[in-house]
């Protein structure tokens, strides 16, 4: 008897089991963790909006980090492409809206987001073709080399990017001509939150689609996917481009909400950090990436205020513990907790 048949026969033998199985499914296991985190994040956002005036700016940072983390999770966690240079797309998005605003007078925010996404996607398409030709270490190196190259360009092109001093003089028009960016960060918070919700919605739909499943298939067994007729290179390139576009949008949001772009948006440490966030939350799980982004940004805000050197120590320690003892990340722990609770309940 196969697993599915057994489950069916068991649920058939309990009256009412079929009706409650969905709820049970939601209360435990993978979906349970996802649902719990979704509810938690939603409540957290609402509470911040209503009562946490002092945290609106931080909240928009969290939302931006979440979008960036999602873009990396789609690539690393789902498609299994490890990158150490994803900040290049984040930074490119940020510089795109920054330069468009400071030099060309393109101050409209929504079209700016779109522009940043398109520009980042174009770079993703060009570098993706090259990066995906290699595997393993070569791939890591190429992503790093491209990111370092763009960092150098931004550093040297001082008249355009402001170099190490950062890009000054950005102006962003009110969103839809109605909502001006205010000093409390309310507009920024709501704006980034709205984009985040849209991105999460898209990402959830995509990962549940046959396309998303095929990415996981490629990650798990590339040869087999090829053998059953999947165009592996095509799938990988398309997710690379999409991930680049999302990262670009996240970067653009940062530039728009802070009205400033610094060279650090392209730095290697950002590429490393975002990978850490994804692993911290749980690679290959969208809600894990979101949780990781939240926890990381809050910790960083608290700890790096004390001392940057200590921050590095705690970050390293946390990461080592996660890698060695909880390879499924925080969301794995949430899952385990929920299944323990569930077992107790059913006893």
């Amino acid at each position, binding site marked *: 008897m196969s697993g599915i048949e057994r489950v069916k026969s068991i649920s058939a033998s309990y009256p009412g089991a079929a009706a409650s199985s969905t709820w049970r499914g939601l209360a435990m296991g993978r979906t349970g963790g996802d649902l719990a985190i979704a509810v938690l994040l939603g409540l957290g956002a609402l509470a911040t909006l209503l009562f946490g005036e002092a945290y609106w700016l931080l909240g928009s940072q969290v939302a931006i980090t979440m979008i960036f983390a999602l873009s990396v999770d789609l690539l*690393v966690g789902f498609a299994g492409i490890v990158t150490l240079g994803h900040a290049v797309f984040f930074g490119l998005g940020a510089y795109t809206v920054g330069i468009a605003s400071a030099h060309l007078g393109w101050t409209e925010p929504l079209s700016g987001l779109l522009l940043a996404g398109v520009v980042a996607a174009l770079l993703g398409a060009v570098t993706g073709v090259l990066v995906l030709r290699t595997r393993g270490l070569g791939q890591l190196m*190429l992503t790093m080399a*491209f990111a370092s*190259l763009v960092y150098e360009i931004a550093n040297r092109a001082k008249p355009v990017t402001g170099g190490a001093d950062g890009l000054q003089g950005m102006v962003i028009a009110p969103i839809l001509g109605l909502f001006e960016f205010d000093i409390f960060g309310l507009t920024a918070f709501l704006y980034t939150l709205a984009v985040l919700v849209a991105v999460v919605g898209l990402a959830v739909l995509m990962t549940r689609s046959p396309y998303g499943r095929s990415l996981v298939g490629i990650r798990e067994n590339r040869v087999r996917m090829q053998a059953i007729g999947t165009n592996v290179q095509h799938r990988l390139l398309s997710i690379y481009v999409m991930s680049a576009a999302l990262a670009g949008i996240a970067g653009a949001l940062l530039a728009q909400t802070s009205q400033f772009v610094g060279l650090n948006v392209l730095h290697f440490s950002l590429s490393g950090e975002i*990978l*850490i966030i994804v*692993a911290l939350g749980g690679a290959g799980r969208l809600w894990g990436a979101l949780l990781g982004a939240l926890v990381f940004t809050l910790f960083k805000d608290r700890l790096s205020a004390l001392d940057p050197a200590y921050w*590095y120590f705690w*970050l390293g320690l946390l990461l080592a513990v996660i890698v*060695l003892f909880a390879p499924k990340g925080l969301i794995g722990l949430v899952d385990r907790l929920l299944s323990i609770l569930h077992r107790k309940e059913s006893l």
Partner: protein
Amino acid sequence: MITAALTILFHGLAFAMVLYIVSVGLGITMGLMNFANLAHGAFAAAGGYVVVVATRSLGLPFWVALPAAFVVVALAGAVVERLVVRTLYGADELRQVLFSIALLFMAIAGFTAAFGPLQQQPEIPAALSGQIALGDVEFPSYRAFVIAAGVAILAALWLLIGRTRIGMRIRAAVDNRNMAEAIGVDTRTLFTLTFALGTGIAGLGGGIGADILSITPTYGQEYLVLFLIVVAVGGLGSIFGPFLAALCIGVVDVAGKYLLPEFGAFFIYGVVIAILLAKPAGLFGVRS
């Protein structure tokens, strides 16, 4: 004209040798154990700090400090390998990368706490602090020593890997680990030894190269791209590949910065991208 060419060549060679000494161990461990160790540079920095402490605080001669750096860092490498790295062999790349980043970050915090954020310079013996005249061009003699050290380490590694039983086992395990195990090579011990050797040489490189790649807490992060480039371009598991890669990158970088300073590090990355696209396994890679 000739003076400029000689200067570029000389300083390029010295830079290349530092890159080589630090990176060669990384290539061997990556080729042998398939472990992507991004914390390799932190071991080199540790070697640099050992030399600084030995020459500045303990007043030991430079010639004692260098072997000490090798031994201390190799021991540290062996301990780290036995305790944690071992559990990650065969784990997916992401976990290895993340773990070594974790190690790197903790090392940065540790170095900052112990030695402060500023650059540290070891004390160089008087015999090496002068200039050597070559025709009418003068070169710092310390850099000549660095070049000699790089060549000496290449020769020593070539003898060790190519001519000893240990080396034979390492080569066998790089080529085909299962087969090597099947014919009785104790890969557990071999891995620890190789990891210790690789990190030890990196420590030596950190100490020798402190004049060129300055010793700061973030050493392992700042120069990581360079080390990885040398390994990726040179090919994993090879000792000559990284040597040629380091030569190529060192001379190209120095020439680029000397002749066209406004382009900065473009040349390095351009060359690397071109080589990796033409030969994804590196110039002399056993495998990618």
